[in-house]
């Protein structure tokens, strides 16, 4: 079957924190060294398991931000104020700490250059993370796929990977990054300043006749709205792959 990964049993591995990067006041990237990591495809995620001294455990899923084959496995985690796991990952972890993770998980929300069509990425907030793995993969393998990323953030301060996105768009042929800032905009902002809507998608997306591969990731309301709008713009529903995170979790 196309796209089917041949998977063995997903065993828990001890991953060591090697580097921390503050992306925004609420978001941190954590680079891990994972001995025995079997490799992943862009868009997949891992399960993280934390264990307290008395044996209590909590698990969550996090998208992988790093490109396949990158030196370290990078997770980018947003601190949910009410969360159980994300505050630990964002605030407590230090280089040298180890946590358990297993993966890669998921094989549908995955992009490879062999797809051959233009790539449309639509992100809301930390939904940009698995899409960043795709963009980084595109750059790392010097693939020529035309890519447009439409990325909705609340404020400029909330933009994750801002500098890297700017650099990638500037130096790469065929990569365009379009931001919209929904809550507040810096002085002189000339970009979009509203939630993603039908008009914005019609302006930014590839025409349906190009049959782009579309990946949408963000909060449920954004994903539902974007997917429905793209279907209305005659995009093939089977070319639109979605991943959502609700307000729950943590």
């Amino acid at each position, binding site marked *: 079957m196309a796209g089917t990964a041949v998977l063995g*049993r997903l065993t828990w591995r001890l991953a060591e924190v090697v580097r921390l990067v503050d992306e925004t006041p609420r978001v941190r990237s954590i680079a891990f060294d994972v001995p025995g990591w079997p490799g992943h495809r862009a868009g997949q995620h891992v399960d993280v398991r934390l264990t307290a001294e008395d044996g209590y455990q909590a*698990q969550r899923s996090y998208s992988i931000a790093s490109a396949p084959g990158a030196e370290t496995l990078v997770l980018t985690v947003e601190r949910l104020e009410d969360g159980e796991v994300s505050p630990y990952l964002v605030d407590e972890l230090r280089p040298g700490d180890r946590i358990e993770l297993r993966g890669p998980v998921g094989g549908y929300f995955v992009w490879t250059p062999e797809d051959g069509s233009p790539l449309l990425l639509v992100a809301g907030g930390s939904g940009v993370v698995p899409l960043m793995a795709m963009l980084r993969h595109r750059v790392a393998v010097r693939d020529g796929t035309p890519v447009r990323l439409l990325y909705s953030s609340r404020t400029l301060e909330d933009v994750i990977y801002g500098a890297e996105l700017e650099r990638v768009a500037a130096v790469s042929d065929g990569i365009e990054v379009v931001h919209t800032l929904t809550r507040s905009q810096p002085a002189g902002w000339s970009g979009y300043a509203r939630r993603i809507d039908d008009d914005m998608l019609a302006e930014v997306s590839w025409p349906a006749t190009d049959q782009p591969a579309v990946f949408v990731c963000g909060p449920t309301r954004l994903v539902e709205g974007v997917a429905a709008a793209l279907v209305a713009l005659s995009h093939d529903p*089977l070319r*639109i792959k979605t991943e959502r995170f609700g307000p729950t979790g943590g």
Partner: protein
Amino acid sequence: MSYVSRGFRGRRREGGDAARIPTGQYLTDDFPVLSAGPTPHTPLDEWTFSVMGELDEPRTWTWEEFRTLPSETLTKDIHCVTKWSKLDTVWEGVSVDTLLEGVETAAEYVLAYCDGGYTTNLPLEDVTGGKAWVAFGYDGEALDPEHGGPARLLVPHLYFWKSAKWVRGLTLRAEDEPGFWERYGYHMYGDPWQEQRYWGD
């Protein structure tokens, strides 16, 4: 063997509800939405539900016919493989026993199929004997399209991806065949109490 995470305390749940939450799950009051693609919107006058495969006469109900079948209201705990669990969810639906009443079949499995191309596989004995429903109501309202409306499978004793949204029918099969997520590495059976999330679990 687990590795203790330095400084991690977690948020334990005490009391009666703790026993209702399988290992690795956390409790939520929300109802998160997870699906692989756009939400389908099949008009009710085009909607049908069918039972196909290993039986003498395939069966098909229109929406109107389906809604005249006896239905029941149930209160169930549900467990999603993405780690959330939700307690005491209230559904209205038609028992799969009702849909299969009088059917003679040698099949041991079913493959549920859905609008949008989604499928999921289950043993026949896990959707019969009062264990599964085709649900059209949630919390006293019509089931929202985001959550699988007009109707979804409800198999609350398995991880919730088995409760396929936008379900349109069941194919009775002699042999087990992986469905959509099962082909991508998710467990063929999916018992949350045994943490059967992925292949090999």
